[in-house]
């Protein structure tokens, strides 16, 4: 069995009375795109800071590439690329100079560094902005510069802490495509976000965090299978009696029926053809209805069921 890229056991981090990380466990394997999903303040960034030894912690162990991480573990740091949540670049240096600076903190060979910097610029498609100062870049381009600074030295492990915050959809797609490409090139990725769609789209495995705890971990499908709901049917209907609702609840696999604002919501757990069964019942009862939606469960549903609150709270 290969050594995990990251292994966290019983991690506890306190800020006075506040427990930011509460007995957190995690194992990330080589080649994964691992998503850390959780609302703001759930402890994602604190966990990342502990992994990078930017923060000391109260209890537990963290191993990176099988070795314990310390502030002076420079051999390990050489293999890690970090893209911080807040853009961290020099306003006084150009795009090229910034990437060269950060790459130079890892790569001493001048020629190799030059090649890596050019590759990073090409990767994030900032070639025509290479002489621009950060203040002249849009939010999306700035994020791409931030990524280039983090990945230019070709690390084996890349940690991206909410890299798409406040980014337009076009830039967001470019960033996500880039992350998948980096993974294809051999890098293990840790991706933290509170955007469940992004995490679901690119991550091979996901850990859901809340109040510093790892509340669920697995692939997106595994997580969804953990919860009761497998399908949510929404039907626009002008009115419906309590008796009809009772009858709908008695249909196979239906476990919750609710009506509000002209919408009938039917939650089903497991089973197939649930939508057909519900529509057949409505037709038999001669109830006229408008548009019909059928949704599979999302990670938000997982989060809602496990914690009792919305992911975006």
């Amino acid at each position, binding site marked *: 069995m290969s050594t995990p890229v990251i292994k966290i056991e019983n991690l506890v981090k306190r*800020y006075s009375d506040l427990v930011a990380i509460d007995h957190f466990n995690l194992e990330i394997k080589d080649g994964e795109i691992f998503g850390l999903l959780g609302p703001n303040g759930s402890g994602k960034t604190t966990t990342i800071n502990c992994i990078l030894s930017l923060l000391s912690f109260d209890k537990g162990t963290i191993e990176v590439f099988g070795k314990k991480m310390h502030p002076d573990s420079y051999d390990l740091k050489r293999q890690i690329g970090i893209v*911080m949540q807040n853009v961290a670049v020099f306003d006084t240096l150009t795009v090229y*100079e910034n990437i060269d600076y950060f790459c130079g903190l890892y790569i001493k060979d001048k020629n190799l560094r030059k090649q890596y910097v050019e590759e990073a610029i090409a990767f994030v498609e900032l070639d025509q902005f290479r002489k621009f100062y950060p203040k002249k870049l849009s939010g999306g381009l700035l994020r791409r510069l931030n990524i280039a600074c983090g990945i230019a030295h070709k690390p084996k492990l890349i940690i991206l802490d909410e890299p798409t915050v406040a980014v337009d959809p076009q830039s967001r797609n470019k960033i996500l495509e880039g992350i998948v490409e980096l993974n294809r090139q051999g890098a293990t990725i840790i991706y933290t976000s509170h955007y469940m769609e992004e995490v679901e789209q690119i991550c091979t495995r996901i850990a859901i965090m809340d109040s510093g705890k790892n509340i669920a971990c697995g692939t997106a499908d595994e997580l969804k299978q953990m919860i009761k709901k497998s399908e949510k049917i929404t039907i626009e209907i002008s009115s419906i009696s309590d008796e009809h609702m009772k009858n709908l609840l008695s249909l196979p696999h239906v476990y919750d029926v609710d009506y509000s604002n002209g919408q009938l919501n039917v939650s089903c757990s497991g089973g197939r053809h649930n939508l057909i069964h519900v529509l057949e019942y409505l037709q038999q009862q001669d109830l006229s209805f408008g548009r019909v939606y059928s949704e599979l469960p999302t990670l938000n549903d997982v989060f809602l069921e496990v914690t009792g609150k919305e992911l975006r709270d």
Partner: protein
Amino acid sequence: MQVFKAFIKTAFKSFPSIMLYFIIFTSLALLMAYAYTDTTSSSFKSVELQIGIVDKDHSAASAALSEYLDSMHELISLENQKEVLLDRLFYRDVEYILVIPEGFEDNLLSGKDTNLFETVQIPGIYSSAFVDQQINSYLKTVKLYLSGGYSLEDALSHSTDTFLDTANNVQIVNFNEDTQHSASLVGIFSFYQFIPYVLASMILCGLTPILTTFWQKDLAKRISCSSTSLISRNLQLALGSVTYAFFNWGLFILTSRIFYGAEVFSEKGLLCILNSLMLLPLSVALSLIISSFSPSWNATNMINNILSLGMSFICGVFIPQSQLGENVLAVAKFLPFYWYIKNNDLISGSSDELFTYTAYWQNIGVQLLFIGALFAIALVASKMRLARQEA
């Protein structure tokens, strides 16, 4: 050397504004230095006043006193009327009125010490006291001759001769030979008198924003994640700061060399240069302290002005220490610029103290103590910054 290179590149970006500082303030410093160069005293001319005299005694003694005063001042004979006397004083026709009362000669011969004569003066004029002192000295000398057995005639004649000789043979003797300087050396002293403010301003304004950038929370965290060691990063930052400070200092040395020639590298010039070298670690330490609190550009300018301008005013950069009040100097002693200026004054000879190498090195030593203390504070401030950033 990535950190060092980025440091220099960042410093280069603030170069135009720093150069503006340099040009404006160095021009002022040179102008002031030029003005100071012309103030060296090499000749003497006694003050000549218009003295009104009312002689009621009409004796040989009163005539001799009048003659003595006439040799140094312009004497105007006045009528003995109070209103006339006051009018003449009011319109400044005369600056001092001497009234020689009846019985003046008799009183002199009898050895009377007080109320030998009366005066009417303009209040608050220091030259009046100067005439008082001349008359008293003259009369004391006459009395000395009289007590020595001389006749009144001889006593008056000898006294007049003695005083006229003294007045005509004034020579400026400087007991500190070291203070006899060439014009360019005087210019150098004045130039180095003014540079603490400019040099400190340039270093504080230039270095603080660079260090603030490097220590900005997100950037510092990002750099900490790299494989370049903390020691290497700090050494490179230190090297950048030292290079920046020396570059600024070099500009001043070069300027003084251009304007004052090779004399800058004379013994006195080198002492000034060495003294000014103390300003570098001092300004760097101040910059380290300020940047630990991550101030904005405006706040940096404000703090810089308070520190460099405040210290310059209190410590005698703009106003000579000899003209500062005792209370101000008592406060200034707790500031490093005071010891810099004190040393500069010592080298130029404008200090009360005679120049000795012991005194010079003592002043350097005090400045080094200040530097040590400031670096210790900078270390504490840096620890506080790190603690703040981790929280």
